[in-house]
């Protein structure tokens, strides 16, 4: 079965005055129908740029480099003309943004904004669009949707606003929803509700979801397959259970080690020392080299490919060739003080 979305060698570069920022640098992955795939990584790893690239919403000075391929329902999104692209946006692929307040237009009622999506795509009457908006708002669990639809964004709570954004993303019954940190701006109690809602609606409509987050908890709860990104690249890809049971890449390992665990009485949380290098000057060899506990001389010169390290499990780490190195962790080469603050 051909996947719904197939990304091959996606490179999105930004031509800034400081140099060429290679924010997404050769990313490939697939999303199947009805599948939930997670992209996890810290700020600046290129996960949001990947999402925006799929919708081709990259603004100058950024651009998707020629040679990148994003195939969706048999069309190549990179070369599609603008009209066809607009037909896809919001209709076949839609997006849920991180900050529900700023993603909503402050001067329109939320019902108008949900209905707007139908009117952009549907060619239906204003009345009909409004009715569908109210129906969809009801689906997302908004109480008394008829009344709420007439309210403005600032009159709703964060959780309600996020439900409105979900309604906007869902109303055209798209094949794929990209959720960019959909719960980051919300209270923890609301987070769980919103995730449940997303998963229930996904079951109902058979939509695929690309879940972008830095929160491994969200990944564990919602996704079936995980892509770990670091410095513009995929560094590890595996099924969710496999990834949590046997993280291979030292970066993934570090992410897991830095999660707080209930019952473990630790004074301070583990951190991955150092910071992500600047996208204008990725290191030549392994991009994680300077922060890695197992690094040795070789990877400095050799850029690691994605090794197969298990069933449907890939990792961009030379440990795949020399696994015995894992037994000798050491302090990375960076100075610890700098990392303590991070």
């Amino acid at each position, binding site marked *: 079965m051909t996947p719904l979305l197939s990304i091959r060698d996606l490179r999105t570069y930004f031509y800034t005055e400081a140099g060429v920022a290679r924010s997404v640098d050769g990313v490939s992955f697939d999303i199947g129908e009805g599948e939930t795939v997670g992209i996890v990584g810290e700020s600046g790893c290129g996960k949001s740029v990947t999402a*925006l690239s799929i919708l081709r919403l990259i603004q100058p000075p950024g651009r998707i480099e020629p040679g990148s391929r994003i195939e969706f329902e048999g069309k190549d999104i990179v070369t599609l003309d603008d009209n066809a692209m607009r037909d896809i946006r919001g209709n076949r692929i839609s997006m849920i*943004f991180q900050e529900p307040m700023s993603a909503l237009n402050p001067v329109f009622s939320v019902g108008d904004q949900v209905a707007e999506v139908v009117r952009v795509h549907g060619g239906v009457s204003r009345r009909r669009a409004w009715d569908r908006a109210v129906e969809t708002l009801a689906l997302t669990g908004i109480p008394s949707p008829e009344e709420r639809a007439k309210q403005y964004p600032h009159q709703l709570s964060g959780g309600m606003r996020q439900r409105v954004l979900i309604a906007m993303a869902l109303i055209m019954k798209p094949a794929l929803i990209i959720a960019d940190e959909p719960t980051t701006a919300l209270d923890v109690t609301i987070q769980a509700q919103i995730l449940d809602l997303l998963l229930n609606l996904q079951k109902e409509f058979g939509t695929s979801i690309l879940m972008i987050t830095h929160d491994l908890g969200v990944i564990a709860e919602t996704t079936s397959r995980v892509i770990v990104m670091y410095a513009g690249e995929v560094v590890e890809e595996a099924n969710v259970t496999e990834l949590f049971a046997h993280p291979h890449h030292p970066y993934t390992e570090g992410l897991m080690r830095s999660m707080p665990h209930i019952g473990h009485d630790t004074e301070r949380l583990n951190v991955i020392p150092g910071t992500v290098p600047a996208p204008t000057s990725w290191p030549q060899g392994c991009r994680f080299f300077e922060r890695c506990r197992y690094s040795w001389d070789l990877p400095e010169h050799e850029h690691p490919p994605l090794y197969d390290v298990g069933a449907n499990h890939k990792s961009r780490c030379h440990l795949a060739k020399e696994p015995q190195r894992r037994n000798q962790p050491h302090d990375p080469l960076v100075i610890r003080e700098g990392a303590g603050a991070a």
Partner: protein
Amino acid sequence: MPGQTQGSARTDPAKPRESPLGLGVRALLRKRSSRVALVVLAVIVLIAVLAPLIAPYDPAAQPDIVAAKDLPPSIAHPFGTDPYSRDVLSRVIYGARLSLMIGVLATLVSLTFGVAYGAISGYAGGVVDAIMMRFLDALLSIPRLLLLLGVLVAWPHLSIGALILFLGLTGWFGLSRIVRGQVLALKHAEFVTAAEALGASRRRILVRHLLPNLVSPIVVAATLGIAHVIVLEAGLSFLGIGVPQPLASWGNIIYDGSDQIARLWWMSLFPGLFMVTTVMTLNVLGESLRDVYERR
């Protein structure tokens, strides 16, 4: 946002609408100075609209150019008569009509140009924006009054329509800068990206998503703009190159009495009072609206 979750979740659904315009009107009604200004303005507008019904005489009629000229205020002529024996009260009432109409229509012209120019420039960005802004800089470097004087001296006897057009065409530069600045600030807002992500076209985003967010500065600029045009028109008419005779505007009534301004004091006092009152109320309203919108 998370903090206010529960509280605002229960804000009464009974009071759903809170559009920027409604917000502005309600705020105006809350403040006493703007309430007074609204009432005064309403009266003046009413006078202008009902001019044919309330004016005691035909504003252009010259009943007796010898015996009835230059009469001081009396019961028969509360504002006196002018050197052509016309009733000044009637002329002031009709003048309200014309002065307000010129103010409103010229401002509409300015708004149309200013908003369109500024929005396109700001939204297009890049080279287009740079060229459009340099052109605007050039226009802004010519004083408005000088521009108008030049035009009106070159073409005396312009019709009212042409006068309105010129007043409007010279009044949009400042507004277009404001609009451009706002569009520039808003076009990278997340709700714009969100609208794009949902498939809206560039034109739709500009018209449906950006412009409604500019209502507040536009309303403020329009209110202040009308006041400015009224003063400008009066100035031009006072110089004898504005509204042509026998039509009455506040400016040209003052002009008719300007030869003997000390003796025919009623000819400048009454239209002057009306003009100052109108301009003041408009400015009070404009400033109050600005306060409301900027506080948000």
